[in-house]
């Protein structure tokens, strides 16, 4: 009887866990859209399972003790106060668990840091409070624009209903082709900022006067949103990042359109 109810309980909780994972991004990371993001997602799930097992082990013992070893039940206290064997065991086991956790993480760290031989390079510059993008190398080289929050002031001040992408929408998206290794070079113009797109699994601080880099390869076309992740003053909450991933053909069209409008703008300036 007892073991049956224990099995039922285990089954129900496993089901509950799985279904909560299925609910997806509300309780977990957003759906990963790059190799690195997938690694991060999987390692996080793995760690949650390890933590859950330890949690049940440690608190199972503790709560059993809390229920049974009570003065109110007339339980008489034992008087043991150390055991070298037990203490060595519970020092060694955590070490082994940590090695199991560190192994996949180490591989991912090495992969994350490998920004060599990219298909294209984009420089992102943090400003108080917007991002500037310069396409430095690869298809689209020479394109340059600013990207600012496009949520109307009225929505922030609660004078208009808030849209679906409230505070996560900008005037100019960073457009990249799907399946290409994009190296992002980061710097800032004034104070620290951080360029973060959760679905692509990258976050890197932008530091004034210094260059940092990171990379991503988007798996699927789509629009991925993120935010500045380093406090940068008054409007820190109002400088989102929107990456738009396109199929190669569409991306070429976008590049051509950008180049054309850039030529038009410069001619316009010269005519003046």
């Amino acid at each position, binding site marked *: 009887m007892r073991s049956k109810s224990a099995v039922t309980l285990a089954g129900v909780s496993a089901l509950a866990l799985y279904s909560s994972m299925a609910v997806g991004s509300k309780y977990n990371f*957003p759906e990963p859209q790059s190799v690195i993001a997938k690694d991060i997602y999987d390692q996080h799930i793995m760690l949650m399972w390890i*933590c859950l097992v330890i949690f049940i082990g*440690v608190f199972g013992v503790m709560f059993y003790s809390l229920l049974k*070893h009570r003065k109110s039940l007339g339980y008489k206290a034992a008087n*043991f106060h150390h055991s070298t064997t037990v203490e060595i065991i519970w*020092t060694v086991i955590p070490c082994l668990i940590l090695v199991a956790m560190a192994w996949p993480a180490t591989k991912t760290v090495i992969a994350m840091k490998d920004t060599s031989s990219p298909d294209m390079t984009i420089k992102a510059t943090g400003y108080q409070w917007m991002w500037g993008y310069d396409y430095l190398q690869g298809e689209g080289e020479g394109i340059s624009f600013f990207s600012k929050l496009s949520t109307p002031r009225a929505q922030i001040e609660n004078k208009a209903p808030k849209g679906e992408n409230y505070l996560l929408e900008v005037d100019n998206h960073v457009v990249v082709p799907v399946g290409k290794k994009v190296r992002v070079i980061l710097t800032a113009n004034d104070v620290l900022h951080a360029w973060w797109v959760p679905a692509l699994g990258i976050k890197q*601080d932008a*530091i004034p006067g*210094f260059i940092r880099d990171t990379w991503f390869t988007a798996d699927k076309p789509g629009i991925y949103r993120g*935010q500045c992740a380093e406090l940068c003053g008054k409007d820190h909450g109002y400088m989102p990042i929107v990456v738009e991933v396109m199929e190669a053909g569409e991306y070429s069209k976008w590049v051509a359109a950008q180049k054309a409008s850039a030529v038009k703008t410069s001619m316009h300036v010269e005519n003046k």
Partner: protein
Amino acid sequence: MAAVHGDAHGHEHDDHHPSGIMRWITTTNHKDIGTMYLWFSFAMFLVGGTLAMGIRAELYQPGIQILEPELFNQFTTLHGLIMVFGAIMPAFVGFANWQVPMMIGAPDMAFARMNNWSFWLLPVAATLLVGSFFVPGGAAAGGWTFYPPLSTQGGLGVDLMIFSVHILGASSIMGSINIITTILNMRAPGMTMMKMPLFVWTWLITAYLLVLVMPVLAGVVTMLLTDRHFGTSFFNAAGGGDPVMFQHIFWFFGHPEVYIMILPSFGIVSEVIPTFSRKPLFGYSSMVYATASIAILSCVVWAHHMFTAGMPTVGQLFFMYATMLIAVPTGVKVFNWTATMWRGSMSFETPMLFSIGFIFLFVIGGFSGVICAIVPIDIQVQDTYYVIAHFHYVLVSGSLFALFAGAYYWIPKWTGRMYNETLGKWHFWLSMFFFNMTFFVQHFLGLAGMPRRIPDYNLQFADFNMISSLGAFGFGLTQLLFLYIMINCIRSGDKAPQKPWDGATTLEWTHLPTPAPYHSFEKPPIVK
């Protein structure tokens, strides 16, 4: 034992001290100073808590309602600084003042006059910090970590904060030297190092950490000050400096600081658990070694706060491994507490409840700590609500719950009166409920992508933020209950016996009457 009693009573006519306000201003008595530390830290806790209520009120719904973004940033910055430097740290020093001399059988602290000064610096520092809200430009708004160049941009509020940190640092260093000297030189005969109560041990190690890192903090804020006003460029790339250097120096202080706020909690819990389990602490010496290893490791893990700042692969790997290693001695402590409870004869008075609540929630904070230590995952959760949830699990349900446990545990000895047990239990259960309501959901917010330190957010984060805010208001109100319980206890609590906890074994319970006399242990007890 009787001789000690007689001695204590015989000296009561020597308790002449100025009365009224002058008693408190001129006092050199460790008990008076401890009391002042505790009241000061509770007052600061209420100020910092009020700021937190403001933050949660603004975040109750998307959109800007109550606090404009600039003021919001001032609130988060001052909330952090006040809670860390004004509430948690002085509270532990208050406990050290009251308890260390009594637990080692010493008559007072080693440097009684310096003790007075280290306390009276605090109100000055607090005035500068809180007063900075009212200067032109308002208080510092660059986060409690005040990273430049943002903190170089701020106004007069930042300078006030820097001076305040200087003063607080001086106070902490003096307090620590006092504690170290007291513990090393004033133990009763027979009280060898390895017989000291664990609370004394953890404070000794904490005090060494403080002496090691507070000067580093003082140095880094001074560099910031000269960058701001005297034309240096330590943290300004245009002048050959490096903003990231600030982060390295700050966190060289900042990470040991985290353990400064948790090690004395370990000490308190290690006193309370054996008492209410009526069984000696399991693995006393491994507890001491674990505390020391945590302290040593805490000095070589600082850059795990900076994984997104960019550093070489080997750097990231080193700091990841070192950080993960801290889980081992911390785990040893949790296992030892569990083994102490195992086959004990437990009862669940309020101090015990808060200690068990501490272990339960601190372990959750430890799990999220290990998860944050894994570099790839940290890249995702760094500077998000996940991290907010993590460090509130270790600082609120860690340090603060241990402080509550300690307050309920020792208040009978301090005042000679018992607190109201029913209300104490209400305080625990309400705190437990509202704490989790506030902070558990913040894990989900962080995972889903909500950055910290933002006054407004996308609609997808709305429901968890509302739950969190409601929980925070409940938690805040619950703490007023604690104030009521303490005042009620001091004014009209039932008389406490000499040893209200039958499992207590330390000197203050076994060798001193209740309430503890103004001067205790003028003749040292003999410890066997």
